[in-house]
C-alpha cells in the first residue's frame, strides 16, 4: 500500500518566500501572544490553596470530586489522607474573580473554604472543613533555571553534533527551525489559554526532540544526494531530498499522531494536555521540516563541495604513476 506517489516532484522551494514568510509571521505572532497573554500556568507552577476536609463516615475520593465539580470547582486535586475519613483538596482559585482579594493580595481563604464546604455538604452533611492553607508551587525556582540551562544545553549540543556530522549551515538551519517550532507550539497553547502544567512542559520539550529528528532525516538525504550526484544544483537537490523523504516524513507523523490522538480523545483530563501539545508540535514540526528548514539552508548557500567527505591521503595511491 502506498499513499504517496513515489515519483512526486512538488516544487516546495518555489514557494520558499511565501512559506518562510508565514513561518516568520507565526513566530512573531507567537512571541506577541506570549508577551501579552502569557501562558495559563497550572497548579504545579503557581501553587494554590489546600483545604483539609474530615468526614464522620467513610467517603470515597470519587464522590468528593464529583461534589466539587457539581459545586463549580473544577480541576481540583482530591487525595485521601490517612484513612477513609479525611481528604485533602487542592486547587487554583485564580480563575474565579470573586475570590480575588485586592490587587496583589492572596485570595480570600475563608471565602473559598466556605464555598468548598457548601459544595460538599450538598451530598454529605457530615463534611467539615479542617485546615486551610496556601500551598507553594511544586516547581521550584531551581527547576525554572534548570529548564533554561537544559534548553541552552540542547541547542549547543545539537548544534555541535550537526556541525561535526554535517556542516555549519545545517546546524544553523536546524536550530532556527527548532526555535520556530517551539515558539509556535507555545504560541498556540497561549492562544487557546490551555492550562500549562508540568506535563505540558514535558511535552513541549519532547516536541524539540521530535522536530529535530524530522529535520535530520531530510538533511541526511540532502547530504547523500549532494555526494552522489554529479551535477549539483542546490535548489534541485534540496527539492529532490524533500520529495524523496516526503513519504517517510508524513507517515511517521501520522503514526505518532495516531497514538497521540487516541490519548487526546479517550485518555481523560490527565493526558489531555500532553497529547494536544504533542499533536500541535507534530503538525508544526512536520510542516517546518518540509517548508522552512530547506529554504533556510538554500539561503545560507549550501553547496556540494562543503559536503564531500574528507578523503584520507593514501600513500599507496600517491606512489602509483
Amino acid at each position, binding site marked *: *500500500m502506498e*499513499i504517496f506517489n*513515489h515519483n512526486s516532484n512538488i516544487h516546495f522551494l518555489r514557494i520558499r518566500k511565501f512559506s518562510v514568510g508565514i513561518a516568520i509571521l507565526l513566530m512573531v505572532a507567537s512571541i506577541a501572544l506570549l508577551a501579552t497573554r502569557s501562558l495559563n500556568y497550572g497548579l504545579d507552577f503557581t501553587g494554590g490553596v*489546600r483545604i483539609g476536609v474530615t468526614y464522620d463516615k*467513610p467517603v470515597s475520593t*470519587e464522590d468528593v*470530586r464529583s461534589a466539587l465539580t457539581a459545586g463549580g470547582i473544577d480541576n481540583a486535586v482530591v487525595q*485521601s489522607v490517612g*484513612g*477513609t475519613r479525611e481528604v485533602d483538596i487542592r486547587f487554583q482559585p485564580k480563575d474565579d474573580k470573586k475570590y480575588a482579594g485586592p490587587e496583589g493580595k492572596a485570595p480570600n481563604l475563608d471565602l473559598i473554604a466556605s464555598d468548598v464546604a457548601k459544595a460538599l455538604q450538598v451530598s454529605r452533611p457530615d463534611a467539615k472543613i479542617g485546615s486551610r*492553607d496556601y*500551598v*507553594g*508551587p*511544586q516547581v*521550584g525556582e*531551581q*527547576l525554572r533555571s*534548570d*529548564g533554561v*540551562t*537544559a534548553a541552552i*544545553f*540542547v541547542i549547543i*549540543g*545539537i548544534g555541535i*553534533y*550537526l556541525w561535526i*556530522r554535517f556542516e555549519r549551515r545545517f546546524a544553523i538551519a536546524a536550530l532556527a527551525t527548532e526555535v520556530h517550532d517551539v515558539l509556535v507550539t507555545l504560541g498556540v497553547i497561549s492562544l487557546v489559554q490551555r492550562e500549562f502544567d*508540568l506535563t505540558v512542559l514535558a*511535552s513541549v*520539550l*519532547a516536541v*524539540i*526532540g521530535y522536530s*529535530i*529528528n524530522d529535520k*535530520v*532525516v531530510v538533511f*541526511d538525504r540532502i547530504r547523500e544526494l549532494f555526494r552522489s550526484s554529479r551535477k549539483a544544483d542546490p535548489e534541485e537537490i534540496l527539492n529532490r531530498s524533500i520529495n*524523496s523523504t516526503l513519504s517517510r516524513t508524513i*507517515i*511517521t507523523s501520522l*503514526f*505518532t499522531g*495516531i*497514538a*497521540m*490522538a*487516541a*490519548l487526546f*480523545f*479517550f*485518555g*481523560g*483530563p*490527565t*493526558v489531555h494536555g*500532553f*497529547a494536544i501539545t504533542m499533536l500541535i508540535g507534530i503538525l508544526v514540526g512536520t510542516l517546518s521540516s518540509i517548508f522552512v528548514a530547506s529554504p533556510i539552508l538554500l539561503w545560507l548557500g549550501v553547496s556540494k563541495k562543503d559536503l564531500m567527505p574528507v578523503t584520507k591521503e593514501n600513500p599507496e595511491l600517491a606512489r602509483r604513476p
Partner: protein
Amino acid sequence: MSDFPRWRYYLVAVVLVLGILYALPNLYKPLQAVQVSAAQSGATLDPTVQQKITSALQAAKIPYVDESLKHDTNRGDYVLIGFDNGDLQKSAADALKTALGDNYTIAFNLESTVPGWLRAIGGRPMPLGLDLQGGVRFLMAVDQDDVIDKQENRYTQDITALLKDKKIQFVSVSRNAVRGQGVIVVLGSAADRSAASDAIANEYTDLAVTDGTNTGDRYVLNAVIKPDKLRDLQTNAIRQNLATLGNRINALGVSEPVIQAQGQDHISVELAGVQDPAEAKKVIGATATLEYVAGLGDVRDPAVQDAAKTGNVPPDAHLYYGPEGQPYLVSKNIIASGDELVDASSGTDSQSGTPSVNVTLNSAAAAKMLDFTSNNVGKPMAVVYVETTTDTKIVDGKEVRTPKTTYKVINYATIQGVFSNHFQTTGLGTAKAASDLALMLKGGSLAARMDIVQEGVIGPSLGQDNIDKGLKAVLLGLGLVLLAAAIYYKLFGLVADVALFFNLVILVAVMSLIGVTLTMPGIAGIVLTLGMAIDANVLICERVREELRNGSTPLAAIRAGYEKAWATILDANVTHLIAALALTTMGSGPIKGFGVTLLIGILTSMFTSVTVTHAITALIHGGRKLKTLSV
C-alpha cells in the same frame, strides 16, 4: 545467511530473554497491606494477636488475602495483612484500630507479591507515582525562631570582629535576652559609641542601630535587624530549606517527590511508592544542619577525658561526641554553618590519592573561614552535625511532641593551610566515608531547623476512573499504531510490530531495573517513545521500497535498505538523544522521569527497530529465492 552474523542472533535472544525476565515483576501488583506492630514494650505480637486480627476482620466482613497474613521476624517485628484494594485496606485499618486499641500501632504498607526467584535475581516492579498510587506525606514546620537565633548569633560574632578590626574599645557585645531584639553593644565612652554606631551602620545595612540608655560609663548601643529584612530572612529560610530538601531527596535517588511550601512556615513533602512512614522518614533523613567550629581537643587530650568523665565543660566549649562515641571539646563560636555551604562533593585528593571531600562556601562564610584559618594553621577544626528529632509520646491519651537536638562531631581534622571558599577534607579512610560525608554536608545545609509535625499516608491524586481512561487510551493508541504499520508495510510492518512489542518489554525492564517511578505522564511518554520508535522502521521500509523501485533484487534491497537507513537513523537518534539527555538533567519531578523514559526509549528502539527487525527479516527471507517482497 551471511547477511546477518550468527552472534547477533544470540545477542538478540539474550537481550529479549533478559528483557522479559526483568519486565515480569510489573505484572505482580503489590498488595495493599496493613501493618500491625507493638506500640508499647508490654504488648507482644503472639499468636493471640493474630487471632484477634482475623476475628476482627471477619466480624467487619472485610476479606483479606489469607496467605499474606504472617509474622515474619526476619523482616521486622510486625504482622502484615494484605488486601485486594486500597478501600478494603483503609476500612480494615479503621476496624483494627478499634479492635486492638492503643497497645498496637496500625500503619499502611505495601506487600510485594513478586515471586522469590524473581526477587533473588534483582527483579522488582516500577514503583507507582503519587498520581497513580499515592504515598506518604510529611508536613514539616520550619523553626522561625531558629532563623532569628542564627542570624543574631552571627551578628554578635560579626560585630565583635568588626569592632576589634576597627580598633574601637568596647565593654561587651552580646545578644539581647529577648529574641528578635538584636545585639546589645556596651561601650566605654560616647565617642566610642558614635564611632561604633557608624561602623556598624556602614558595614551591616540590614541593621537598625539606635542609642540605648546609658548607666554611668556604660554607653549602650542597640543593633536590631530591620523588620522587612527579618521577613526576607524568613522567606529565604523556607526557600533554602525547600531546595536543600529537594537535593537531599534526589541524592538518595527517590524519583518524583513533591516538595512544596505550605502556609507561612511549613513544607510538605510527598514521597511515592512507600506507605510506611517510618521507612520514608529514613529516606528524608533527619532534619539536620551543620556547623564548622574550632576544635579544642579530642580524646587524646586529658582535658577532654576529664570533661567527659566529670561533665565539667569549660565555659567557652561544648562537649560533643563522634560517631563511635569518642568525646571532643569544640568552641562555641561558629565559623560557618550549613546554610552558607554552596556545594560539597567527594573525590580523590590529587596529592595523596586518598578519598576527600571538596567543600565550597559562600562569600560571607569564605571571609570568616579565611580569617579563622590564617590564625589557626596546624590547629584542629571540627564539623558538627546538628540533628533535630521529634519524640512522640502518648501521655494521657494525647500526643505530646518533644523536639530533641543532638550534636555529633562527624569530622575532626587539622587545618593544613589557609583557605577561604574552597577547601578539602582528607583522611577519611574509604571512598564510601567520603561520599557519605559529602552527602551529609550537602544535606545539612538547612537554613533553619525543621521538624516533622504531621505524617500520614495519602491516596492517589488521580481518580480511579481517570487512571482507567488513561490506560485504555494508551492501549488503544498503541494498537492503532501497530495496525497502521501492518496495513501500510504488510510483512515488514508486522515485523516492525513485533520489534515494537519487544521495545516496550525492554523499555519496561530497564525502567524497572533503574527504579523509575511510573506516573501518568510517564505512561504517555512511553507511548510517545514507541510512536517515535516506529520511525526507524518507516525509514528502513521506505528505503527498501526505493531500492526495489530502482531495480534491486529483494535480498539486495533489504541489505541496501538497512545499510542506507542506518546512517539516517543514527543521526536522527543522536540528536534526539541530546534533547532527552537535557531533560534528565532538569532537577527532579515529572520532567526528569519523562526525560529518563525518553532516553531509555531511544536507546532500546535503536536496538529493536534495527537489530531485532533485521534478525527477523533475515530469518524469514534468508536462503530463499525471492521474486517479490511484502513491503
